[in-house]
């Protein structure tokens, strides 16, 4: 491919394609564009859309009179006619919203989302209660299957993390307690913290990451693939069919997982008590049961129920409100996990305040 400027005529010859255009573009910068009046393409034997775009750029970039194509063979002219961008009108750019418009939109969205969330919560609770007494619209064994997924499959990871948590709590306090000869009080610390706070919260955070994300992604995928619409058209309530079993399974499993977490966490503390603080098993458990009250257990387990419900509702909310395709599913899942963990911590703080009063 070659390019020469002769008597105000730019003569191009050879192939004007995506392979030659980058080099021609560089050469063009060295030429005085304002002097080009005519373009001769008679010797161009092949042209593609990149070549036509190059010619368009050449004609548009001239600050004075736009050069004209004087000579070209028929096939080149046909290609120029098909691929020229000069005849396409420029589309008007999207208008960006102003500062106040954005604030207004955010407020309206917040109100809409809050109302939607409240309606969804009431619907989920209603259909979950209905599902306990009327299982007609549920697949057989769906609660058991959900209990296995949400509960049984999480036992391993919850036990391991609770054991480590028990060990950490006991080790952190042991060094201080030892200085005052108060070794036995490690049992009090572990008992109160695991039963009232760490057990329910740790379990809820793990369940939010495991099951909350699974709920959000499952529902979001169904929404994107129009499976939810298909259920609606078949006159099947998606909340009753998909969410209610998960809600009820979570209600059953979460307190059980919290109990497992507390027991394993206490065992973690016991290991530190035996091997680091020279306590006996009997002394550790006698102290532990003397300090624990029924109220502590009720506080821990009742919290866990609220955590369970919030995780399901948030997962369902983000799942049903997914927009976009596969990327939207990913975003919905991430948002649901972040929102669930945030909600669990805020709820925990509220419960702490309520029980203090």
């Amino acid at each position, binding site marked *: 491919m070659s390019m020469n400027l002769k008597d105000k005529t730019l003569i191009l010859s050879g192939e004007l394609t995506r392979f030659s255009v980058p080099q021609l*573009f560089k050469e063009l910068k060295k030429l005085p564009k304002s002097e080009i009046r005519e373009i001769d393409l008679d010797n161009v034997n092949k042209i593609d859309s990149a070549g036509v775009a*190059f010619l368009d750029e050449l004609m548009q970039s001239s600050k004075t009179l736009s050069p004209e194509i004087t000579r070209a063979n028929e096939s080149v002219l046909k290609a120029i006619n098909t691929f020229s961008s000069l005849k396409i009108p420029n589309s008007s750019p999207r208008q960006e919203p102003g500062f106040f418009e954005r604030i207004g939109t955010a407020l309206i969205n917040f109100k809409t989302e809050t109302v939607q969330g409240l309606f969804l919560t009431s619907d989920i609770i209603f259909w979950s209660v209905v599902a306990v007494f009327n299982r007609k619209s549920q697949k057989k064994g769906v609660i058991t299957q959900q209990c296995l997924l949400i509960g049984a499959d999480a036992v391993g990871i919850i036990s391991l993390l609770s054991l480590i948590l028990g060990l950490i709590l006991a080790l952190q306090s042991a060094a201080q307690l030892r200085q005052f000869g108060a070794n036995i009080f490690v049992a009090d610390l572990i008992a109160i913290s695991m039963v009232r706070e760490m057990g329910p919260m740790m379990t809820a955070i793990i369940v939010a990451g495991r099951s909350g994300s699974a709920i959000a992604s499952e529902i979001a995928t169904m929404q994107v693939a129009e499976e939810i619409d298909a259920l609606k058209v078949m006159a099947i309530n998606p909340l009753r069919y998909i969410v209610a079993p998960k809600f009820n399974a979570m209600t059953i499993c979460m307190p059980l997982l919290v109990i497992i977490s507390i027991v394993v966490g206490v065992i973690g503390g016991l290991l530190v008590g035996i091997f680091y603080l020279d306590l006996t098993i009997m002394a550790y458990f006698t102290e532990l049961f003397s300090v624990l009250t029924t109220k502590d257990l009720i506080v821990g387990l009742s919290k866990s129920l609220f955590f369970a419900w919030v995780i399901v509702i948030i997962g369902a909310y983000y799942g049903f409100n997914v927009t976009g395709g596969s990327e939207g599913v990913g975003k919905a899942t991430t948002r649901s996990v972040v929102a669930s963990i945030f909600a669990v911590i805020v709820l925990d703080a509220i419960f702490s305040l309520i029980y203090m009063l």
Partner: protein
Amino acid sequence: MKKPIIEVKNLIAKYDETLVLDNIDVDIYPGEVTIILGGSGCGKTTLIKNILRLYQPIQGSIKIFGKETMGLSQESLEPVLKNIGMLFQNGALLNSISVFDNIAIPLEQHTKLPAQIIEKIIKVKLHLVQLEKATNLLPSELSGGMKKRAALARSIALDPQILFCDEPSAGLDPITSVKLDELILKLKEQLNMTIVVVTHELASIHRIADKIIFLEKGKKLFHGSLAEAKKSNIPEIVDFFQSGKF
């Protein structure tokens, strides 16, 4: 005598243990529109995907631009693929980026064209598929037909020598479908593009077909011109042209 641009010989392909392509021989010539026909599940899409090596055939020979592609690694296959465009059945646009960025991918990855030129090419390609207003939209904001047109714009971004279209008219309104056929003819005539189309639309076949390949249960029943196909006595082909659609 023209040499075929795609030569398939004794191609055998399986899904697990099920035979889906049984000893297929196909020659596709440059500058022609070849239509692959056949009932659902007869192996039309599988044949295209085997030619493009998206699936691995069990045995046979596939030559594209005279180069044997069987046994080539993905890296060695890339120079061949750069001259081929593919319009997938559901568009296969990348959902996380705009229509403009989708079409820019092959231009930015495979050429050294400056940004102004790339922008102009994208503008023209979107104009050709009548999607100028969708430039900045995300694929999730497009209808099914618009997605397909955007995907077609992406597949012709590099003016490939060969274009494969898997059911391009499906989901499109009749007017857009006619315009799409006109575009296919334009690409054939002006860029001498070789186009392979899987379709069931009889009207579209009449508008664009040079050659017909008819598959049935993984076997090639017929390969010839549209006129020859219409005169054929093979019952499946007669049924097709009489019923209008599969």
